[in-house]
């Protein structure tokens, strides 16, 4: 069992709270991704799990053992750093074997484990090379290899792909996903890239300002974001938000006085301020639907198969809608946007999801 449990974790530097009351369970064998904007505390949370940062209060248990006061080495974790942190004066073999040597692992056992990791990561021809003789992707694999040979309960990845170029990043992402399946490892992975989070995770933890905003399966977060922050963070381009006022049981009035008939939760009263959210990919240019917004085409970004039309509303707000193929319109033309009622999100004045 290598479950990680975090209870009421609090971390502050002096009077600055960087982590506030974090609760999280990483199930055995799960791939959990911590995601959020920079400075949200995701790396700090990872470092707290690793034992590289002392925590102010709360408990961390790994595999049922409370590790609050244990040094990193005794927590049975292995960390892959953003910068790889390979020992420059040792070759690839030395880098992977280093920790085991100090753990007094017998030599044949070290050799076997390194050989196994090298086989999995296709590092066999590189074992005698120094880190400076390796490419970025190879260094990355060595850093992962160094984690694998320790046979940890939990793997911790701190933005491992952010130093790689775009093509290599996609490759390595797939490699990491395969590795997770093959090793059946418990992984906590930090990234600011929501695509990495969506593609890799069994469970995503969205963090903001030291708090966990929402925890859930990737598609749950996509289809049912718990609040405005998660709604805006997951998905690219970001979800469109429209400020609106409840008119009656089924009508919203938008800031530019357009009316929309949408299913509203029973609790909403006329006069309530709400935010209506709709993803670009759930909007269509052209108006046959019951729900339609009117505006002017500002610019059209063409990506090939799809594109994004920026539509300016009467209020000056710009809404982005996905278009397929040739949008058949041009900047300056007036446009109507159809919304799918089933894919609308409503948030109350405090930003929490309604319904």
């Amino acid at each position, binding site marked *: 069992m290598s479950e990680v449990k975090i209870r009421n974790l609090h971390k502050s530097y002096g009077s600055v709270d960087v982590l506030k009351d974090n609760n999280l369970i990483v199930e055995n064998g799960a791939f959990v991704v911590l995601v959020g904007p920079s400075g949200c505390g995701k790396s700090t949370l990872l470092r707290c799990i690793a034992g590289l940062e002392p925590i102010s209060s709360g408990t961390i248990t790994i595999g049922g053992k409370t590790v609050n006061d244990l040094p*990193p080495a005794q927590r049975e974790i292995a960390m892959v750093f953003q910068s*790889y942190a390979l*020992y420059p004066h040792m070759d690839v073999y030395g880098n992977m074997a280093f920790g085991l040597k100090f*753990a007094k692992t017998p030599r044949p056992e070290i050799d076997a484990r390194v050989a196994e990791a090298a086989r999995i990561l296709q590092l066999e021809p590189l074992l005698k090379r120094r880190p400076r003789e390796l490419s970025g992707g190879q260094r990355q694999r060595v850093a992962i290899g160094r984690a694998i040979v320790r046979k940890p309960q939990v793997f911790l990845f701190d933005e491992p792909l952010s130093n790689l170029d775009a093509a290599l990043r996609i490759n390595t992402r797939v490699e990491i996903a395969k590795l997770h399946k093959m090793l059946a490892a418990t992984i906590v992975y930090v990234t600011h890239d929501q695509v990495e989070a969506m593609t890799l995770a069994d469970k995503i933890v969205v963090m903001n300002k030291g708090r966990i905003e929402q925890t859930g399966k990737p598609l749950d977060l996509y289809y049912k974001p718990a609040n405005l922050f998660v709604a805006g963070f997951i998905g690219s381009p970001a979800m469109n938000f429209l400020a609106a006022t409840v008119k009656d049981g089924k009508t919203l009035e938008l800031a530019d006085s357009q009316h929309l008939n949408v299913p509203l939760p029973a609790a909403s009263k006329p006069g309530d301020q709400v935010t209506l959210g709709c993803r670009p990919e759930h909007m269509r240019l052209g108006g046959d639907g019951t729900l339609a917004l009117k505006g002017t085409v500002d610019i059209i970004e063409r990506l090939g198969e799809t594109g994004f039309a920026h539509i300016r509303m009467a209020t000056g707000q710009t809404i982005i809608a996905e278009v397929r193929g040739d949008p058949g319109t041009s900047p300056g033309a007036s446009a109507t946007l159809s919304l799918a009622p089933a894919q609308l999100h409503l948030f109350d004045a405090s930003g929490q999801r309604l319904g």
Partner: protein
Amino acid sequence: MRRNISAIAVHGILGLYTLLALFPILLVIFNSFKTKNAIFGAPLTLPTPSTFSLVGYNRVFGDSAVGSYYVNSIAVTAGTIFFTLLFGAMAAWALTEYRFRWNTLLALFFSIGIMVPIRLGSVAIIQLVVSLNLINTRTALILVYTAQNLPLSIFILSEFIAQIPKDLREAARCDGLSEYNIFFHIVLPLIRPAMATVAVFTMIPVWNDLWFPLLLAPTGGKQTITLGIQQFLGQYITDWNAVLAALSTAIIPVLLLYVVFSRQLIRGLTSGAVK
């Protein structure tokens, strides 16, 4: 064209300076191979078959004590380098890596050592060495020289240690290394170029020093070579052949040590560690 001219000018100036720096040394070496009359008659000429003589070398190596002076010098220099590097690197590591209460004050205390010349404390040092019963020992010299060289070496090594990526130390902590092992197996190998620099800085003044050997180990067969050579300089007669020969041979060990250390002065040892 302009670049050529400036390159020639730069090389000319450097060449001139090299000549200036090497001239006295070459003069000593030439003259050590000449007869006494030739040294005084034509000091600036190379030895010719008629003026060639090994009398100085014979006298130096004939003197059984000179060998032990070399041993003393080498022992003192090597011991000083070893302890300066070890304690210097340890102190530098502690001051850079750990945040503790008197950290800044301690760093300041060490840097005062760079500014205050240790010779001001000569009298106190003699009293201390006498009461420790270390007079006329190599230990006394090593201790004093280590104290003399520690401040600057801490200062230089701290700068280098601060440049070691934090991730590396944390990776080592995750790998289960103790703080001592991190120091010996991660930090020391990575600051090797800096240590070589400090070693060279330390070595040359120690090897050439006359002051402390004269004060702390003037007799008892523990003289260093610099002091030992003085026996050939009399009040009335100076055996120039022997002095020049001894000086020439005294260059060799320090030159060898320099070659050893300068090979370590390679840049970019940390490349490939991060990113």
